[in-house]
């Protein structure tokens, strides 16, 4: 059992589905890109060079949009608005106020980010199509404002932007301009890739897999999404700055919908959420557009105007129908095929698992002395319209104990559980955890104080492997935000968390599947993995929603034994369970809900013999009660 804890490079943790999965990948990719970028101006024809420059400029907003779509799961149909804001700000500062280039550019980028912040503040709370529609509206507003305002030069726009100068060299031709943009694109790619591999990036992709699970581990979805939107606008703004330099005139249509569509197209063709895909998409679309506007009039006589639209439309439809993962999907498939043709090394044999070995317990946090109340539920009431699901429930959970919450179907167990974990807000009453009121707040608030949960219907992060899932449990222990993530300054933190994740897997006998995709595990092991993930958060209170459901007898025993040992180590556990026998044998206290009312609460012995419980829960038929009781005796 010495195999698992040695930390390797951080990139190992990234989802296997990604082609460029490692930091090494980033380096190799950027090195190739730089070499190609140096060579292109020497070899390409003048018209090719012109297209290449625009592709490089448009790659910036495309990368930003790709981050937004891949990480925040939202689409902006107004990426050109931010592009336009960056371009206009830059152009106005340069031509009207003689601001030095670098400062004007910085302000341009910041202006785009500021507008994104203002739009995102109210809108990132909503899911679905709202952000898409609002950004679309923003695009039109920016375009119309620019067109109607004297300050922005109305339809003529802002012109007379001088060519930039770098170290005294004026950037006078496309080749030089290409070299001028490329470093920024490379930098942007590195920052974006780092972000997708970072703590924040992983949290966001976890949110896309299961928002409720990510929040139960302490991820503040809203804040992260908002930051990604702002960042995405920053990329677009930077693109706008270069556009203003290159074209030397900024006019209203650059904020228009057609431009937004082009950016979207680049991302979709490249592959949603892929940084390299966005770059590839930018080049493909630019050359496609160029080719189309020559090809289509040749094929169809008399065709004039923006006929490249036909190409865009056909390509988009085909990509969505046949290759929804874009170029990245195609490349990955090709790579797999090549690998399968090349006889490689045989897979390393599975690590042997020594079931008998006594495994180390994962670390837990015990902020209170055993017996002190860690969770207090008072007067908890939940009404759905006229139906009372919970009626003034009072409960106190002492630290270092296991409380079993049972009751017949529809008794209000799940409602109670969901209120405690923060997924539901109660009609009235409060839940106090470690002296803080947590009811009615989002789950990540409770999670940040040390309360986490598992799910009856498993909520696994299917885009990553088993160790990646457990690693997400460490979210609360990390500090690195988006900025640190982008700069790649969190390797140490990631490495130590990765070690912890492996330790926990080992303690639950899951080491052998650590690098399997989480979704491919059998049900019982997925449930164990979920428990691992919750334990990785080092909670003070662990909420388990029907943890025994779907487990085999042997697995139930392993889990029950683990829970006892964790309890003895100081962890407080609250479980909702159907398996009455397991609860009676495991819990220190049992609470019984019936029709939303707490009808009994006490030690298992007492509760079991409570006539109210027998009547309400086990059924009023005497024979049935006796059978159940005998059954219980057998288990205890």
């Amino acid at each position, binding site marked *: 059992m010495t195999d698992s804890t040695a930390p390797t490079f951080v990139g190992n943790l990234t989802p296997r589905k990604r082609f460029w999965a490692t930091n090494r990948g980033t380096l190799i990719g950027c090195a190739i890109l730089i070499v190609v970028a140096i060579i292109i101006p020497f070899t390409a024809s003048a018209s090719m060079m012109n297209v290449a420059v625009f592709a490089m400029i448009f790659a910036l907003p495309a990368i930003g949009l790709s981050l937004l779509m891949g990480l925040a799961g939202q689409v902006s149909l107004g990426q050109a608005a931010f592009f336009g804001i960056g371009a206009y700000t830059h152009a106005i500062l340069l031509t009207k106020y003689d601001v030095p280039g670098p400062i004007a550019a910085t302000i341009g980028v910041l202006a785009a980010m500021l507008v994104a912040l203002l739009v995102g503040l*109210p809108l990132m709370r909503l899911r679905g199509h709202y952000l898409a529609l609002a950004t679309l509206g923003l695009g039109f507003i920016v375009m119309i404002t620019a067109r109607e305002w004297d300050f922005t030069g109305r339809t003529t726009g802002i012109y007379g932007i001088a060519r930039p100068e770098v170290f005294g060299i004026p950037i006078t031709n496309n080749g030089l301009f290409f070299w001028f943009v490329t470093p920024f694109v490379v930098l942007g790619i590195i920052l974006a890739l780092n972000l997708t591999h970072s703590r924040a990036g992983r949290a966001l992709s976890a949110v896309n897999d299961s928002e409720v699970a990510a929040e139960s581990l302490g991820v503040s979805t809203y804040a992260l999404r908002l930051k990604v939107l702002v960042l995405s606008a920053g990329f677009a703004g930077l693109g706008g700055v270069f556009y203003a330099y290159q074209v030397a005139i900024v006019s209203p249509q650059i904020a228009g919908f057609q431009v937004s*569509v082009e950016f979207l197209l680049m991302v979709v063709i490249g592959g949603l959420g892929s940084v390299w895909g966005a770059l590839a998409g930018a080049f493909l679309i630019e050359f496609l557009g160029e080719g189309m506007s020559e090809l289509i009039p040749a094929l169809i006589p008399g065709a004039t105007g923006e006929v490249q639209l036909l190409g865009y*439309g056909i390509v988009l439809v085909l990509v*969505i129908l046949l290759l929804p993962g874009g170029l990245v999907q195609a490349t990955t498939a090709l790579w797999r095929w090549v690998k399968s043709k090349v006889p490689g090394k045989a897979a390393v044999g599975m690590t042997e698992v020594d079931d008998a070995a006594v495994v180390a317990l994962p670390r837990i946090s015990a902020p209170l002395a055993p017996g002190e109340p860690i969770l207090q539920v008072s007067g908890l009431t939940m009404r759905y319209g006229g139906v009372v699901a919970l009626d003034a429930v009072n409960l106190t959970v002492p630290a270092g104990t296991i409380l079993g919450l049972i009751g017949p179907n529809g008794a209000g167990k799940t409602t109670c559980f969901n209120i405690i974990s923060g997924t539901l807000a109660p009609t009235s009453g409060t839940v106090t955890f470690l002296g803080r009121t947590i009811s009615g707040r989002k789950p990540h608030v409770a999670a940040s104080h040390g309360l986490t949960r598992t799910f009856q219907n498993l909520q696994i992060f299917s885009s990553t492997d088993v160790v990646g899932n457990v690693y997400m449990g460490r979210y609360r222990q990390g500090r690195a935000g988006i900025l640190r993530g982008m700069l790649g300054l969190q390797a140490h933190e990631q490495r130590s968390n990765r070690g912890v994740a492996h330790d926990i897997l080992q303690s639950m006998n899951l080491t052998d599947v650590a690098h399997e995709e989480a979704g491919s595990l059998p049900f019982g092991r997925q449930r164990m993995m979920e428990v691992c993930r919750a334990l990785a958060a080092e909670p003070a209170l662990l909420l388990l929603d029907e943890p025994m459901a779907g487990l085999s007898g042997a697995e139930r025993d392993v889990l029950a034994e683990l829970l006892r040992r964790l309890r003895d180590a100081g962890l407080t556990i609250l479980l909702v369970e159907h398996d009455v026998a397991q609860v009676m044998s495991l819990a220190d206290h049992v609470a019984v809900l019936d029709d939303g009312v707490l009808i009994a609460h006490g030690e298992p012995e007492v509760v079991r013999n409570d006539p109210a419980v027998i009547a309400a829960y086990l059924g009023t038929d005497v024979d049935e009660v006796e059978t159940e009781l005998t059954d219980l005796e057998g288990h205890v």
Partner: protein
Amino acid sequence: MLIDFLQLTVAGLSQGSVYALLAVGLIAVYTVRQVVNIAQGEFAMLAGIGGAWLTAAGMPLIVAIFVAILSVTLVAIAVERLIVARVKNLTTLFSMIVTLSVSILLQAIMLLIWGPEARGLPRFPGENLLIGGVSIRSQELWMLGALIVVGGGIMLFYEKTRFGKALRACAEQPIAARIVGISPVMASVLAFAIAGFVGGVVGVVSSPISLSIWSGGLLLGLKGFVAAILGGFSSFRAAIVGALLLGVIEAYVAGYVASGLRDGVAFLILILVLTFRTQGLVLKPTAVRV
């Protein structure tokens, strides 16, 4: 002064009825499929340009109108069968990208076939009215009439008939819908057919005044969209009221402020509504989808 005001109001209401019909088409699809159909405006342009081309080729107006509406309905069904239905994993994000690509494709096809010029159908028969100095063109009455007949009809179909209600329930309860005898496939085809039909009607009634052009559908569809948002993407009534309001406000802005700002109104309303009141004009929201 007052006459100007009333004149603008009339113009606004007739334009608003166009937005209202488009919103009805959008909601008809959204309630069944949860798809925001960005190509809705292209349906209207297709009918307008196609109808104008047919009449120019010598077809009688009434026949051209029928052919145009029918063809666009068939195009909408084809879009559903050939593209939308074939997308696996149709999330909100993907549905918007898909209908956006349909929109671009239709634009390009119109551009290639009919060229870049705007075309208009001849005016529908009828006398222009002059009431107290306010002139009402007969075509504007046709537009309002189309809203009342077609929009009202579709609203009643969805809200009052058993079949229509089952259709709406399809998105949330496919099994219940099946019991009433509607398969999800059938429901989806029907929803797109309705969207195509409404788009076709909008296209032909508005074409004599507003003219139809290959690139005009997007902006028009987006206005319909704003109206649909005002109806919380679920209530036909609220959306129709919102659309008429939008048309009137646009007319006032164009008349009293600056005609260039006209198109900005809708999107300003859009952002304000999304920011402060996502249920739009719906007074008793059933459940806000978030």
